[in-house]
């Protein structure tokens, strides 16, 4: 199985430099105001052609940052991202310059991701027109085909975004991404802001497109139910690291990492009868100042001395099932 997308050892730090006043304060003995957010730390993942990899995590886990690095919007601080062996972006004066049209992104909020002043037909055709994805004479036909494909009237091409509902806008955003004929789609919380009934429609569209076009995708979401429904494999992230990675069915039926298990127990399930809640204790630590060792140890019921000092590596618990937990690699006690 050769990987289409290869994410190797990717880390991303965002540094906020102190302003002039803070620098002056620091010079006379004040605190150093430089703040560094450790958004991603040493993430290695691969996605095979035709596969959908789900990325799940709570806020601050770095899943959106990962999506933006794969989409060529940010440069990683370390590590590399390649598509078919070629880098997706290069560094240009500190900013990312995207090199490929083969990765396209779908954002969370369809009210923010479409330019309010541009007709949707032009929004869809702009990329293919500029990059000559199809001969220019055929761009209009392609736009009409795509609108039909995502379940909208082809005649809607002349309308502005404010004339559409949230679900329809998300369909337009999908059409815009598909227009570039991408090898890889990055969906960042693409159904999170939609109503449940509309969410089901968009998920069905995604499944249908996947079947017809053989899409490869990175499906980023906080919603475990949604991710399970569309993904082949799932990566669970916590505070910038992948803590568990396994085929979707496996991770749902046999979660190994204490965080994954706790996460599953926290989800309210549609069912009858009062249930006891078993929430995870404590809060998600700030990525400004992640705990040493395993980032989950302050909230983990199984944490031991080793967890406070040593970062657990993602290691196989079963074939194709990686877990980053000391419980799986020799226990939580410090080696004598």
């Amino acid at each position, binding site marked *: 199985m050769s990987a289409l997308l290869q994410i190797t050892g990717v880390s991303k730090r965002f540094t906020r430099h102190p302003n002039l006043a803070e620098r002056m304060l620091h010079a006379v003995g004040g605190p150093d105001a430089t703040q560094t957010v450790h958004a991603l730390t040493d993430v290695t993942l691969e996605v095979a052609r035709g596969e959908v990899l789900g990325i799940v995590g*709570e*806020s601050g886990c770095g899943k959106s940052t990962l999506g933006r690095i794969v989409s060529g919007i940010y440069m990683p601080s370390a590590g590399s991202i390649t598509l078919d062996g070629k880098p997706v972006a290069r560094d240009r004066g500190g900013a990312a310059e995207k090199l490929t049209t083969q990765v396209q992104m779908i954002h969370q909020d369809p009210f923010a991701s479409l330019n309010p002043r541009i007709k949707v037909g032009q929004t869809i055709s702009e990329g293919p027109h500029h990059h000559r994805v199809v001969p220019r004479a055929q761009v209009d036909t392609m736009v009409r085909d795509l609108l039909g494909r995502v379940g909208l009237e082809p005649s809607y091409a002349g309308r502005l975004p404010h004339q559409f*509902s*949230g*679900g*329809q806008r998300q369909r337009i955003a999908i059409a815009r991404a598909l227009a570039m004929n991408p090898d890889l789609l990055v969906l960042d919380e693409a159904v999170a802001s939609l*109503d*449940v*009934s*509309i*969410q*089901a*429609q968009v*998920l*069905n569209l995604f*499944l*249908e497109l996947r079947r017809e076009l053989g899409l490869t995708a990175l499906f980023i979401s*906080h919603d*475990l*139910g*949604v991710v*399970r*429904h*569309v*993904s082949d494999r799932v990566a669970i992230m916590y505070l910038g690291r992948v803590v568990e990675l396994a085929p*979707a*069915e496996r991770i749902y039926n046999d979660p190994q990492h204490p965080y994954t298990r*706790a*996460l599953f*127990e*926290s*989800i*309210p*399930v*549609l*069912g*009858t*009868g*009062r*249930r006891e*809640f*078993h*929430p*995870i204790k404590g*809060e*998600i630590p700030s990525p400004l100042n992640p705990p040493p060792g395993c980032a989950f140890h302050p909230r983990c019921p199984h944490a031991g001395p080793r967890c406070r000092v040593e970062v657990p590596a993602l290691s196989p618990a079963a074939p194709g099932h990686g877990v980053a937990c000391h419980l799986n690699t020799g226990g939580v006690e410090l080696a004598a």
Partner: protein
Amino acid sequence: MSAAIEVAGLTTQFETRAGIVTAVNDVSFSVGRGRILGLVGESGSGKSVTGFSILGLVDPPGRVSGGQVLVAGTDLRGLTPEAMRKMRGKAVSMVFQDPMMTLNPVLRVGDQMARAVRAHDRVSTRAAWDRARAALEVVGIPAAAERLHAYPHQLSGGMRQRVAIAIAILHQPAVLIADEPTTALDVSIQGQILAEVRRLADDTGTAIVWITHDLAVVSSLADDICVMYAGRIVERGPAEAVIARPLHPYTRGLMDSVPARHEPGKPLPQIPGSTPSLLNLPSGCPFRNRCPRASDLCTTDPPEVGTATHSARCHHPLGDA
């Protein structure tokens, strides 16, 4: 046992450029002491406006145009603005999706909680701080005494929402209205807050109206559920009954749309179309254009069917065919 809050025929309208929009249309429900009512609906269903209408917080061009809101025998709708202000925060209080709607960013948590205490009760500052600390402990905030000295921005989103809930329960209100209070929070934090809220209702007897779009949340939290669609309550009943045997096709459709209930990768049963604009609702049942069971009959107003406890407004309810 009489209800802590009884809402009858509540109607709220907005005057817009394109005409009058009835955002809340003849909504009635009651919540008993210590019980939690889940008010469920999608965007545009009128669930949030219902909450605002109860507290008289609808701003022009909106107007509560009819109905009663009875709390402890008083009709809130008949109160003067001054009297209403005295009720808010004392007899009835509200928690919003964004806790910063409640919290003042430039005041320490303890200061604003003490102010909230002294707004209704004449007690010493010291006693007010003590009550504030007690309220923080009720909502499960660890090291409550220390948190009182923190500013809102020093707290996480989940912690802020707990503080907002603590402020709302300072005066042990008879009724707490919570508008999507956990929607913006992470699932692990949401779980913690749901547990505290359930305990709050059980321990203090506060009646809670929990407004949300998430059926799964209310199915495990609420005693009763009202499902709203296009400004109306289309189904009501005990949570278990509504989830186990929904009567209204819309409720069924909402439940079926949740991916976790289906085999991965298979198409989800979906409700076709989108929520109708409240400006030009179809005649009769507002759901009929999206409904798999609709017939010609549905162009007339649907009747209330079912039992006294579990009912729906539908010509063709499920389960009786």
